């Protein structure tokens, strides 16, 4: 196994204050590093050691400020580590930002050549591939327009087309595909898959875990500049989600008080037998238990739960109204709502709650997130469906039944069904 990228004991520091002239000169003129200097510094990477074998696609995940982009910049050769070293084998193609390496006053056509020159591609080679670059970017009509008039989506299309066109040995992508429209996203994912098949080592930084799961075989999880974990995608993502969930849940107050009449003391997610859970299999019933306490008398309320995805898009809202109208809460108790067969894809979701007072719909408790859970892929893993779905990212997993009925044949299709 040959390593395409090796990081050994990499430390990277950013100065929050401008370096004093005296120290800068010491740095420049001597080999000694001015360690004893004052001034606030931020360690973006701390003692990072990582090896990426040739041909692997490594996802890098972690919260904001974990050092993901810094690592990419060092691998791309844009900046240097302060300690340790990074070894990169072969030509690097990188797409780390919208419009990276483009000059706004030049036209798209001129920028293709400029970018090629930046990454050291001979003009002749660019000319050879020019047509396929343009075809991929779908920007034929805009080629002779200055890039300053391009939308960010158009810039990304151009940048991605050029960056992937010259068979990089190592390709770096930093959370930019999200800018393109869905059609281009799909196209660029397919292009990355092509590069993978061609043996390119890909490093993919993203907050979109579904995309990471789709593209990467291994994932490195960075946290405040250190490598927390590196391993098979599903395992690392699962553990990452668990800590994110915990972090998220820690932010949710254990006891939610309302105007005083109602106190929501606890929200628990449970499975079919009532055991508390944070993870559910695809299609498994998800129960939400709301523990309440009412100070005095009885309180007529309408309770609503909603499930949102990581981007806080509302997927479904369940109201208590059509079932029991209204709920009469007295003393202490538990309101239970079960999503019988949630058609959710393997992802991370949030549960929100709202409580309205029954007669006049006065807000007793405004919408607020109260729990998070993960849906895990079961026997049909993401990687399996991946082969069929290509780069399409379904939101829902609806139960289907399939059959074939030949019109004039005596043969009957065997009744088939899948969940």
């Amino acid at each position, binding site marked *: 196994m040959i390593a395409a990228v090796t990081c050994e004991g990499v430390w990277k520091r*950013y*100065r929050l204050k*401008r*370096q004093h*002239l005296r120290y*800068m000169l010491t*740095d*420049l*003129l001597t080999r000694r*590093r001015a360690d004893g200097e004052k001034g606030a510094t931020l360690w973006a990477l701390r003692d990072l050691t990582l090896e990426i074998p040739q041909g692997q696609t490594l996802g890098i995940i972690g919260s904001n400020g974990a050092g993901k982009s810094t690592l990419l*910049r*060092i691998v*791309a*050769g*844009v*900046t*240097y*580590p*302060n*300690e*340790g*070293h*990074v*070894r*990169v*084998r*072969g*030509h*690097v193609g*990188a797409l*780390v*930002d919208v*419009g*990276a*390496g*483009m*000059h706004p*006053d*030049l036209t798209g056509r*001129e920028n293709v*050549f*400029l*970018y090629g*020159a*930046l*990454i*050291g*591609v*001979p*003009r002749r*080679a660019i000319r*050879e*591939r020019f047509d396929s670059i343009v075809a991929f970017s779908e920007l034929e009509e805009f080629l002779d327009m200055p890039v300053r008039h391009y939308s960010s989506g158009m810039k990304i299309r151009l940048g991605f087309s050029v960056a992937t066109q*010259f*068979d990089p*040995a190592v390709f770096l992508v930093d959370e930019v595909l999200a800018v393109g429209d869905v059609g281009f996203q799909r196209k660029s994912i397919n292009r990355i898959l092509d590069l993978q098949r061609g*043996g390119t080592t890909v490093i993919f930084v993203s907050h979109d875990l579904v995309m990471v799961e789709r593209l990467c075989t291994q994932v490195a999880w960075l946290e405040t500049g250190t490598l927390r974990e590196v391993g098979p995608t599903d395992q690392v993502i699962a553990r990452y989600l668990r800590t994110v969930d915990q972090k998220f849940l820690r932010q949710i107050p254990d006891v939610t008080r309302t105007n005083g009449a109602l106190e929501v003391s606890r929200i628990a997610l449970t499975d079919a037998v009532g055991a508390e859970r944070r993870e559910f299999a695809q299609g498994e019933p998800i129960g939400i238990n709301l523990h309440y306490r009412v100070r005095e008398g009885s309180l007529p309320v309408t309770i609503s739960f909603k499930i949102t995805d990581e981007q806080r898009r509302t997927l479904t809202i369940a109201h208590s109204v059509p079932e029991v109208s209204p709920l009469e809460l007295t003393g202490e108790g538990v309101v239970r709502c079960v999503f019988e067969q949630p058609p959710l894809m393997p992802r991370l979701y949030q549960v929100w709650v709202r409580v309205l007072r029954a007669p006049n719909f006065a807000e007793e408790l405004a919408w607020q997130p109260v729990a998070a859970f993960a849906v895990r892929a079961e026997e049909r893993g993401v990687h399996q469906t991946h082969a069929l779905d290509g780069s399409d990212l379904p939101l829902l997993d609806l139960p289907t039944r399939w059959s074939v009925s030949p019109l004039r044949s005596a043969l009957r299709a065997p009744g088939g069904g899948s969940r």
Partner: protein
Amino acid sequence: MSEGRVHPALTAGARPAESVAVYSADARPRLWENLKNVVAHRELLFAIAERDLRVRYKQTFLGAVWAVLPAVLMMVVFNIFLGRFGRSLSEGFPYPVFAYSGLIFWNYFASVISAATGSITGSYSIITKVAFPREILPWTRILSSGVDLLVSLSLFGVLLLVYRVDVSWTAVLAVPILAIQVILMAALALTVAALNAHYRDVQYVVPLVLQAWMFMGPVVYSTQHIPGSLRWLYGILNPMALVIDAYRQVILKGQVPDPRVMLGLFAGAAALFVVCYTLFKRADRFVADVV
């Protein structure tokens, strides 16, 4: 150490030959390697110079006139104030010819240095996102302003005809002198570009220094009255003065310059270049963090 390496020649389906880049805090920049890398990226040098020219002339009304106008205007202005003192200031040549011969080479120098000052900071978007030999940025203006110089030189030819100043064969010696000027400019361009990346004050200081520098040198008046014993000191403090004097010697006076002075000048410029380039490459490793 190599960064922003050249893309291997591309043939369909072939995997590029493997080169290994090491990014380490302890990497020592090697001058020769770095220069080779620049040569390998020469197309970038040309592309940015071309971009420079395009951008400069695309959205301007007068276009290429701007290449010659500053020097011509300065020549006219100085002619009004200094031309009246007779030919003692201009070593016996018509003042406009004398002044213009200094001004075109000086303006070349000044425009390269002032453009270099902001070349690193102004290219924020590529420096922080793509790896390439960044010394190319301050150097491109040597090429693009070189085009302006050619335009100015043709106008200078017209001026020589108008004032009936004969030019002898020694004028071809202007080429090696230009080479020395280019080395000097390359060294100083690196210095101001790197300094400005760390301290933006530099961009305000450079124009002032250039202005003062012009009047300290023999650009618009002769400095021949400086005694010979002091001239070497003057030359060290202001190598551009020697360069401009040398241009006048070979173009206007038809003399061959003192080879010792020329060799000394060349050696000095080369040494300055080596020092500036080495320091630039050291500072360059972290320049993406400060621009």
